[in-house]
């Protein structure tokens, strides 16, 4: 799974607006997990920190990536000065535990169109404020080939993934 997780780590163009990069990363994560039930069980347990055979490097790479990306919100011109690093950690941790809980409770991930906009609302609110957060609830999922397209470049192809298509402007 490690190779696939490394493939998953999105290489997003820093010039792309922060919100778009976070959204692309969350859809990529969701689609990766939704495409492979076993990967979802393992990775989410690792991300939530509860796997019996957790591979810390994998979980740390992912959480480190996600937290740093969320924490870049502090560089947004609208971000209040007092927002702490803990906000990004708690948001990233909350996302991981929320997805893990859904798998444990319901046996499956929630639909991406339901869960990702809600998670984006939580992420955007502290850094970009209420209006931007509200906008996130109205943004539709990107076409399936976009944010996770890079997954198909690796040796292991995700079950259910669509063929390579146009790259998202957010990915390099």
């Amino acid at each position: 799974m490690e190779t696939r997780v490394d493939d998953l780590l999105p290489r997003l163009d820093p010039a792309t607006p922060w919100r778009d990069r976070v959204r692309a990363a969350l859809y990529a994560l969701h689609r990766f997990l939704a495409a492979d039930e076993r990967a979802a069980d393992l990775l989410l347990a690792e991300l939530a920190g509860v796997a019996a055979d957790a591979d810390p490097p994998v979980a740390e790479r992912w959480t480190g990536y996600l937290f740093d990306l969320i924490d870049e919100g502090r560089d947004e011109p609208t971000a209040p000065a007092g927002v702490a690093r803990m906000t990004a950690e708690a948001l990233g941790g909350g996302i991981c535990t929320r997805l893990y809980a859904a798998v444990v409770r319901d046996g499956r991930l929630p639909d991406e169109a339901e869960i990702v906009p809600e998670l984006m609302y939580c992420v955007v609110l502290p850094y970009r404020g209420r209006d931007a957060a509200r906008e996130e609830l109205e943004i539709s999922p990107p076409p399936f080939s976009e944010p996770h397209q890079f997954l198909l470049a690796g040796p292991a192809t995700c079950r259910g993934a669509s063929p390579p298509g146009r790259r998202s402007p957010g990915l390099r």
Partner: protein
Amino acid sequence: MRALPGRDARSRATAPAGVTRESAKADQRRRILRATGELVAERGYDSVTVELIVKRARVSYKTFYAHFAGKEECFLELFDETMVQTRAAIEAALVEQAGAPWPRQVVAALGALFEVLLADPLIARASIVEAPTVGPSIIERYERAMSDLSPLLRQGRELSPYRAELPETLEDTLAGGVLWSAYQRLIVGQDEGIESLLPDAIEFVLRPYLGEEEAARWAKSAREQTAGEAASAAS
């Protein structure tokens, strides 16, 4: 299996003073649970055996099996007991704040939760960090415990001018985030980091309901109180 870093292996599970049969039995049970928690926190659940537990608790195998069917039952009891204590501490804090504004109740509940974690970080580590590795028997209980704060947070919707837009799953994400942050500090043995986390956690959970300024005000007040308490403890 990851063993938790950490603490001195000496146990608080010391032998009891001679008392009545019933209290001796209760004391044995307490020592077994304590020893189990300490060992699980130090070594990870999978590496703990009944042999290690009876040695640490200074009881015989016969005594151990008179109380528990095995390691898993023993650990489940420890987990349940820890959760009961945590819920009781939060409920007591809420009773004390009955009638107080909702943000104050949230501050009190988070404060009580963090106090429980700090009061016995070793058992907190065993319960929060290691519990989910036990297997299917505990996962549902664990998930239920992790969402314990959600109903209290949800009450904030009634006061919030933003309630119409708040996502349905907001509370689970907020509660999960706070616990995850505390959990990370328990994993790396930064127990003291939990205390300093409190004001940020308060701001984090109040922000969606009250807005940036009001949440920051409650966090500032908690930060000042924590600093004041630290100063009086130092003097």
